[in-house]
């Protein structure tokens, strides 16, 4: 029973970690190999400390701390740590140019009267983008391409991406419009591929960001506000 709990704990912890995180790889190794009865269940990479009879702290080599509640058999990351992760993650998205200042504007608009504002607006962006990318794909697939139509769709996509701060998608659209003007089908197709990639990239990143926020709120914490200057 203890081994089952151990596996459950590791699995939960592993799911909480971002891809590529060194600890995720350590844990993956543990989960794949069955633990013999004689062996100590906790690897030296993991440290376990009892806080009280109900809960223990699980500290990973990287410094991440999890709280294990034996009674409820739950594992949760410490709130402060989650908040720091969220800030670092958001910062990285700005540094990489995936998001721009407009995204911060959206976050600043959110308040208690509308606590899901950013998620709602971003969801609208996802809906818009997916529909428009389909429309553009279909339009470029025609025997005789109607570039006015393609341009209109790209213009709309540019607008939506600009409104949420999806910088790379927006820039892709700006480049695309040049190909439309030239009535260049090959260039347009290449550009479309590029924009699709950028779109799915930003979609994954934003969904991960929202998941981090949800975890913080679920743990009883508040979502930290990004500073405008960094």
């Amino acid at each position: 029973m203890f081994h089952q709990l151990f596996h459950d704990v590791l699995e939960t912890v592993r799911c909480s970690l971002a891809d590529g995180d060194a600890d995720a790889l350590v844990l993956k190794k543990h989960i794949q190999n069955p633990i013999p009865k004689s062996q100590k269940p906790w690897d030296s990479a993991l440290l376990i400390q009892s806080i009280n009879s109900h809960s223990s702290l699980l500290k990973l080599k990287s410094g991440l701390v999890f709280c294990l509640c034996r009674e409820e058999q739950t594992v949760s990351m410490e709130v402060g740590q989650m908040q720091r992760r969220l800030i670092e993650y958001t910062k990285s998205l700005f540094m990489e140019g995936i998001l721009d200042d407009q995204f911060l504007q959206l976050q600043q608009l959110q308040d208690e009267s509308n606590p899901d504002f950013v998620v709602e607006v971003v969801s609208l962006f996802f809906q818009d983008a997916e529909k428009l990318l389909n429309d553009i794909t279909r339009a470029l697939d025609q025997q005789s391409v109607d570039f006015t139509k393609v341009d209109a769709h790209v213009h709309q996509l540019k607008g939506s991406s600009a409104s949420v701060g999806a910088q790379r998608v927006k820039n892709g659209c700006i480049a695309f419009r040049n190909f439309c003007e030239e009535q260049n089908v090959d260039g347009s197709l290449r550009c479309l591929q590029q924009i699709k990639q950028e779109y799915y990239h930003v979609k994954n990143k934003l969904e991960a960001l929202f998941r981090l926020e949800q975890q913080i709120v679920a743990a009883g914490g508040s979502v930290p506000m990004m500073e405008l200057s960094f």
Partner: protein
Amino acid sequence: MASSSSLSSASMAMGDEKPHVLAVDDSLLDRKLIEKLLTNSSCKVTTAENGQKALDLLGLGDGQHALNSIASKVNLIITDYCMPGMTGYELLKKIKESPTMKDIPVVIVSSENVPTRIKKCLDEGAEEFMLKPLQKSDVNRLRCQLTKFSNPHKGMLCMGR
């Protein structure tokens, strides 16, 4: 019908009433954004998804009475330039042609910075031309101008951007 009453300066003179803005944009995302920007700045907002719906709301639709319209309450109209059907420019023209609506300030917003487009709109009587996406500082500025416009005697100081 006195045309100056459509300025709703009477309602604004009460001081406590929120300015009422009509926002026109074909993008649902942008409508949601502008609505939040304006409500955060203590404005009452009505949105319309195209020029025709905006005209209907203003009581300027074909064969309409101004009776049930929001016309007398609107202090500002913000419209996107690029819209299918009726563009923001065409909507502006229709508003300026109306004896009841011509004095309501109209602001045109666009994602594109095209000088000829800007000049065209300003020449037709647009109050201002602004670039999208609108930011809090833009709305703050508009809000200040609105207060000054309707209440020249109220010495309100508008600080910062």
